């Protein structure tokens, strides 16, 4: 048996996605709005589904409707629809009761682009 341990510390530049990644760290759903058809993708698509390459960054309200959710070994995940977005989003659901159908984006708080939806609180609701 050959045993080998490798630890790898990556430093990846997000490039054009930098505004999206920066948004996640402070809990902003920063989406891409197409200059041609106004479709709004989140996570952002560099090229719109209409084929247009030009877009602008826009902050969505951050609230989302949960369409499907899966629960298991690694936690809860969902396919959700962010208010104001044209596309849907897959993400982690953090402490959202099974009976809840809506949530709000959580700040990732570190240098990882971790997309998370958490429970709406009275303070941030609406």
């Amino acid at each position: 048996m050959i045993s080998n341990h490798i630890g790898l510390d990556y430093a990846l530049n997000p490039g054009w996605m930098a505004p999206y990644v920066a948004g996640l760290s402070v809990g902003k759903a920063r989406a891409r709005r197409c200059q041609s058809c106004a479709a709004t993708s989140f996570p952002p698509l560099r090229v719109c589904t209409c084929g247009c390459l030009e877009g602008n960054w826009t902050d969505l309200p951050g609230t989302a409707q949960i369409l499907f959710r899966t629960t298991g070994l690694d936690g809860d995940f969902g396919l959700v629809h962010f208010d104001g977005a044209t596309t849907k989003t897959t993400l982690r659901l953090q402490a959202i009761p099974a009976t809840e159908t809506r949530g709000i984006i959580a700040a990732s708080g570190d240098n990882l682009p971790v997309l998370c939806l958490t429970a709406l609180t009275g303070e941030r609701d609406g």
Partner: protein
Amino acid sequence: MKVRDVTVTGAALTPFNRRKDGTGFRDWALSAFEMALERSGLERSDIDALYVASESDFFHLQLNPASVLATEFGLTGVAATRCEGGGASGQVAVHTAARAIQAGAAKHVAVIGVDPSASSLSGDAIRTLYGFSFDAWTDGMTGLTSTALYALSFQAFAAEHGITEADLATVTLQNRSNACHNPGAHLPRRDSPQDIADSPAIASPYRRLHCSPLSDGAAAIILSRTDATPRRRAGAARIAGMGTATDHMHLGARADPGFFTAKQIAMQRACAEAGATPAEIGLAELYDAYAGTQLQSIAALGLSEDVSRDLNNGAFAPTGRCAINLSGGLMGQGAPVGATGVGQTATCALLLEGRYHPSLQPDTLPRYALADTHGGVCTLSAVTILERAEKAA
């Protein structure tokens, strides 16, 4: 440009399982290659090029594996190419190799698929790596696992097509039951629906028994220009059509997150090339990463207009109109990623020649068989239609 016809002159698979015998991926690859070469009636010196499918350097800790295997096989001097397309890597290698023959760049080529997905790293490490086979920045780093993404896509499909938990159980039991007749299968099991319901929840609705295992193993085929095929291999199957297509990487950017659009397009392309229709496919090895994935694939490939109805009336059983995953599929036979697509093509070729495992070999051979592989949640689809030779057994 004249397009040359391509024949599968040799095909072989090692057992798929978790190796505990001290052998490594180089041994399995060599074993599959030598078996396929022997069946082809060709010599090492006849091989012009080597195509190697391996999903990730992380699994075997070997960059540039195609060059390493060329040396291991005693093929130094041949052209060597590594092909990668996530879970579709094996089928991508088959296509790349066949296209080289069609274009006249090679006469005989070896295609090897190999990965040590079971024994080289812990299951948790492999699952983390698989998370990066979707969009690593928007999905992988969020901790979204392969099973969770597949489960979400399946839920969208099930809602649209009225698929039930009982349908998932039928697929699971059928594939593993087929695997009981395959001596090289990883999970030959006869479970009950209750066993499935009692297995641990991985990502609802998927439980452990709905999932394909991580396996070690290799598969190989030798492809030849049909007019250069050894005379004694006149009964070998030919490649009739190939198709590849991609879908949006983000599940949420797809118009229908439950439908495998890339697979539909790849199948249309393969059928157009073969001059065949989905209704003419009599055998299929499908990419059943999860039980529901098989049902999503059946729908996208056009093999049924009512998947649940046809599943339950036995259309996809071993004696059905289109027997699916006689090998056991990924769920029963196992899934050493790079070997999967090559193994599916090898299985179809052996079936169409009448040389598969005797208790799985159909009495009547159809004209066409289908090998279907994809990477991501069907982000990259690659399908191959094989055609029986007129002189097949």
